[in-house]
């Protein structure tokens, strides 16, 4: 809606990568262990579980050893649970913490069990990769896939995008100036995403089953080709076609989109801001981590108000952003723009056409935020004194203005604080102030000369604070803010580059769908593969909701309780009467949630690849944190187990098998 990037989920950090890897190992390892169990049972029932076979080669020895480690670790892990019921004080803290930063014994066991199962499972394909697979063959199969796709005229589907360009005005007939680019981006994403997803899912789901059905696959498998190479070849070939198509359509969309853009939209969205974002906390509110709640359904923002005139001694509430580090060249080329977009919640009408007046302050991070207001009072007095003196000494207007600027710099250097008072704030619009470069330079220089000492908890204080308060004149209004609503603008990049970065997100979704559909098609029929893919991707659009459902965090209870509420017309906020029916419903819901939790990791998080908000709101998509860490790595992490599954299903499929 405005140039504040609303991201409710925090972006992943490199520091959290090991924890994420651990979680992935546990989840993927469980699936691998399940696969091993099924395979083991099958082998056992077929009587293949002989010592000679298991320990015949170093490879089978390695696999058997890993599987054994996994089994032992899982058994130890499972043993913790009955022990924790019997001796809760001793063993409960050893159970897996699932997501907590500190590793318990249970976490270690779970990770080791998962990792060992994974090793056992991936060893055969891994060894095949170096011994049996040939990249030349894979490349040839990829080219074949491209040719097949071209011959099947699938690329004509991309021409359907032309229809979108023709009818785009159908969606955006009447737009507020500032929203023009956002709406174009939205429409383009709305059209491109389903178009490419359908193409990818159809290509992926039907290609191998069709070949099997037509028996044309025999022309390939009878050649010296590994079966998994067919899968990889298809993936690369179709991936290539889709990538080229995506780039072409994205290029055309960019040309279409940047025609006759409204100046305010240009200012708002046709850019790629590189913001420096701080951590938000509150001062003199009931809770440090949040301000007042105004009762909005969406609790993204917290609100502060001005000082109540009936309680003049009450402390002034502040929203405080802590900036741990800022780029070293910030302020080197002039004043630094502080941009913000807040929400205003009015308790009184206020004055027609006037916003809410706020004070923006910057303070040295070594100061306690509570000290900053007092320091500012001191600065105000001193500024007054110095300015009065300057007025007496100097007559020329330009000289006086220069002197005033010098006074500000002096005060910044002496006291380490700066403020702008009476700033009119409106909501749902990007506003900004140019903050003196001297402040930032001074903070950086000071930090270089005298690095910040770590505090009591071993954490260094932030480099600087940015504080916002509501002025006395607007005391009856509330201003809502979230962490990303205020930032220092470090740089601006090209919009076009950012647009293509956004397309990378879409590309990740397309590849995810393609990979998933191909993996499913190695065993299932075309239609079933396609429906399975659509089901998984479709549910992936609601991962947030499903996670809350699985964790029992939905208001009004689980699915069965909600069903009961619908029929008894009890709204979800009202408590249900404690009856036997409720007990039964709650139990059923718990069982349902337990099953759901088991399958939740099968669902891909598709929404994370939707980067249109970055592009539409004019925020740079960073290569490292957003593209690599939040898109590419999760994509690989999700597809990897599917491809391993594909390897086995393809391998054991009855297609021209020698035996």
């Amino acid at each position, binding site marked *: 809606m405005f140039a504040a990037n609303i991201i409710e989920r925090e972006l992943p950090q490199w520091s959290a990568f090991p924890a994420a890897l651990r979680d992935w190992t546990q989840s993927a390892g469980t699936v691998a262990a399940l696969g091993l169990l099924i395979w083991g049972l099958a082998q056992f029932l077929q009587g293949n579980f002989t010592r000679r076979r298991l320990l015949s080669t170093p490879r089978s020895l390695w696999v058997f050893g890993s599987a054994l480690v996994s089994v032992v670790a899982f058994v130890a892990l499972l043993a913790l649970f009955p022990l924790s019921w019997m001796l809760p004080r001793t063993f409960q803290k050893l159970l897996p913490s699932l997501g907590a930063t500190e590793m318990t014994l249970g976490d270690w066991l779970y990770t080791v069990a998962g990792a060992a199962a994974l090793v056992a499972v991936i060893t055969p394909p891994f060894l095949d990769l170096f011994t049996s697979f040939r990249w030349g063959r894979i490349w040839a199969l990829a080219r074949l896939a491209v040719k097949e796709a071209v011959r099947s005229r699938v690329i004509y589907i991309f021409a359907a995008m032309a229809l979108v360009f023709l009818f785009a005005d*159908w*969606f955006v007939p009447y737009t507020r100036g500032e929203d023009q680019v956002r709406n174009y981006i939205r429409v383009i994403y709305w059209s491109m995403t389903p178009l490419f997803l359908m193409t990818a899912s159809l290509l992926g789901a039907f290609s191998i089953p069709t070949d099997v059905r037509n028996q044309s696959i025999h022309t390939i498998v009878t050649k010296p080709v590994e079966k998994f190479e067919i899968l990889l070849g298809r993936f690369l070939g179709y991936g290539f076609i889709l990538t080229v198509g995506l780039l072409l359509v994205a290029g055309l969309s960019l040309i279409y989109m940047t025609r006759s853009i409204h100046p305010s939209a240009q200012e708002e969205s046709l850019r790629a801001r590189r913001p420096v974002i701080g951590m938000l906390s509150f001062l003199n509110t009931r809770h440090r981590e949040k301000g007042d709640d105004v009762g909005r359904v969406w609790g993204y923002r917290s609100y502060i108000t001005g000082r109540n005139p009936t309680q003049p001694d009450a402390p002034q509430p502040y929203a405080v952003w802590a900036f741990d580090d800022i780029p070293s060249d910030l302020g080197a080329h002039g004043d630094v723009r502080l941009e913000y977009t807040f929400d205003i919640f009015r308790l009184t009408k206020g004055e027609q056409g006037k916003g809410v007046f706020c004070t923006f302050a910057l303070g040295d991070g070594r100061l306690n935020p509570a000290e900053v207001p007092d320091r500012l009072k001191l600065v105000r007095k001193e500024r007054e004194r110095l300015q009065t003196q300057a007025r007496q000494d100097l007559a020329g207007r330009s000289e006086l203005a220069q002197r005033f600027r010098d006074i500000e710099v002096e005060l910044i250097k002496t006291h380490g604080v700066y403020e702008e008072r009476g700033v009119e704030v409106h909501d749902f619009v990007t506003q900004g102030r140019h903050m003196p470069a001297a402040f930032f330079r001074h903070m950086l220089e000071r930090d270089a000369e005298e690095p910040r000492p770590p505090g009591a908890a071993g954490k260094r204080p932030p480099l600087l604070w940015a504080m916002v308060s509501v002025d006395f004149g607007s005391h009856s209004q509330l201003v809502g803010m979230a962490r990303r609503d205020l930032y220092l603008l470090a740089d601006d990049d090209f919009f076009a580059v950012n647009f293509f970065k956004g397309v990378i997100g879409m590309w990740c979704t397309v590849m995810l769908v393609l990979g998933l559909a191909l993996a499913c098609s190695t065993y299932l029929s075309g239609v079933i593969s396609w429906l399975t893919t659509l089901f998984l991707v479709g549910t992936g659009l609601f991962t947030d909701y499903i996670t809350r459902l699985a964790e029992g965090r939905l208001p009004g209870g689980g699915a069965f309780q909600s069903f009961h509420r619908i029929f008894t017309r009890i709204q979800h906020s009202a408590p249900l009467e404690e009856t036997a029916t409720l007990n039964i419903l709650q139990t059923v819901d718990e069982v349902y949630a337990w099953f759901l939790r088991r399958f939740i990791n099968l669902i891909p998080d598709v929404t994370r690849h939707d980067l249109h908000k970055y592009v539409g709101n004019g925020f740079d998509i960073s290569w490292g944190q957003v593209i690599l860490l939040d898109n590419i790595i999760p994509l690989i992490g999700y597809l990897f187990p599917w491809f391993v599954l594909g390897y086995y299903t393809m391998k054991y499929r009855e297609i021209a098998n020698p035996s």
Partner: protein
Amino acid sequence: MVMATPLQQQLRQRKLLYLGLIVALFTLSLLHRRFVVEAAADELQLREVSRGEVDLSSAAVRLTLTGSRGLAVTFLWSSACDMQERNEWNELDLLITSITRLQPHFITPWLFQSWNLSFNVAVEFDRPRDKYFYIGRGMQLLAQGERVHQGFREEDVARGKQMFPGNPDMRHHMGITYLRKIAGSDEKEIMQCLLDLSCIDPVQREARRFKRTGLRGEEPDLAKLAEFARNYPRLVRRLNDKLEYTSPLQVVNFLEENFDVPSRFKRAESGRESELKDWKEQFPVLPFPFSDEWPNPKSAILNTRDDESLDVFLMARAWFSYAQRDLPPPLFSRRAPGGLRNLEDDLDMDIFDLKFDRLKHRIPRYMSLYVFRSYPARTYAYMAENLSDEGWFDEEGWSLRHWFERQQASGEDLRVGGEARYHTRLAWERAQRAYEQYGRDNGLLLDPDQRRRLDDKAEKYRTKYKIAHVGIGQEPRREDMAEYGESYKAHMRLHANLYFRSITNFDDFVHQTKAESAPQTTLAHKLLFKARELYRTGADPEMALTLYEVAWPLWIDVLLQNPEYAQLSHVQEDLYEVEVRYLLRLLQPQRSAELQKILSGFAQTSVWPQLPLYERLPQAEKDRIARVRNAWGPLDGIQYYDRPGAAELKEALLLWSHLAGEPLRTTGGPPATIVSLMYPGQLSRQLTRSVHRGEPLPSGWRNLLDDMNIQLVRERLGLAPSSAPPVPEVPEGAPPPPVPRR
């Protein structure tokens, strides 16, 4: 040539026969479809094209969705709710567009989502122009929906094709949105200014046109700005008076800040005249111009009429009038089936049970038809009120002199807005005519003779069945029907008249418009307005006092001459509020020295010896002498006789007192010489007295301002404690109050 066998010939003949039959049946079915099925579908308004405008792309998408349209719409609706919660307004807007396109013939999403945008979304914004945008967006959406259901296509109008009834509710809602969000919201002044900007060609309001380079850099070009004010006086005055944009520079800044509002014009190259947008894409959005009385969106000058200025109420009125277009004709209008009739005719007709042809007419879904029909007349009155509120009364207009104070006064006329279209009294006259027409068409306006005749007729039934003068009565028994049937119908006709008059508040509006149409009332309003402005701006409080003192007697005359108007509670409340403000905020501070002396004198009377204490008090102590909160003003003590026949009695008294000098006449009204000698309000001042407020009222007399209205105003201004009964405290642990069952 080989001859075909008889079997082959038969086969060929049979084939030819079948082919002929196929062609014939196909042709027949085509003709049947064209002339029977389609005609019937047209007649019954079943075809999309006969409902209104058709959107080809919308229809195409609906077809491609086949049976999954419901699913898609449900998903979109859920997403729209989600987007609204997350304040993602532009995405909400896109989703709403898609929903309405996918379900174009379901009225509720159009109504609900347009209201949602205009009311819920708009109010979330803080900047007026953003609010204005979303108000406009909601209205555009509704207008679009209305066009889908309007019952005709634009090209059909030119061809004179049959038109079907449109949806009156959607049209009515358009008018309501104009009224509530632009004319009557908390920020109505700025919204109306933005609406004015929307109607002006952007080239003409470009801020740089009004800037020039002067000695001190860039400054406003006063001559051009004055020209602008001459063309758009209401906009400039509203900015000046209501929004405090008092200097020319502020006005130019306002134009600059709000240049980019939704408009009627396409964005033009600088220096070139703007082109009009297609009438459907313009804002303010207006109906298809069926009537010359409505602003014409196809014309660059929206309102070409000389007698009415451009106003938000004009647009609302266009929609309200358009909403009447497909209603069944009013029962007593010329267009009614059976022609013009009056209230005494056709007593068999049941007014409460309206019968009409549903293929030709539509009625509003929820609102009473009588209330629905009253809206156009109501907007006439609103328009007059708005003019009065802005200070446009007569040819005096408004002066721009304060802009030129720093400069040498130029010889040119600096007054703007003196034209007749800005005169309040003329606007009230139009409102009066509109109400009378509405009353006549709907059988609400009943002249005393008609009423008496109907009363006489109804009396027989009332006596027999012991029915009060008003109120619904039981139907006469079958055996009495022959004797009392007509009398019963007369009673019911009077009952219906009273009922509909009361639900539409018709009498009050008629009395108000009549009283406000009088020049004296306009003058009284003008005096109060000027006094208030002089006080508000602090320009000349003494002159303000003088104007108030001139205004009060005039108001007393207006009220006494129009006793029904005087008894309207909102008139009394408004006047009393002005009077209280005058007493407490102007009179007492302006005359504080005298007042303090009097008050301290009163205080001293209780003490002996009476020393000249007041003169010895320091100024700070004198200032502490409180103002009198329970002060009574010139209107408060007026009492007048108000019984049936009061007017005749007053006339008789006046004649009696003047007859000494006149020859006796037996017929006609008061003699001409008497009339010429009379003070204009003399007749109405008969049987009137001015007393102390607390004095008891004689029987048949009433106060000019009722106690209840005075109390209400005093409560509102914090001068009196609330008279509402206190909410009883619920003791802790007490059972909750019973909830009424549905």
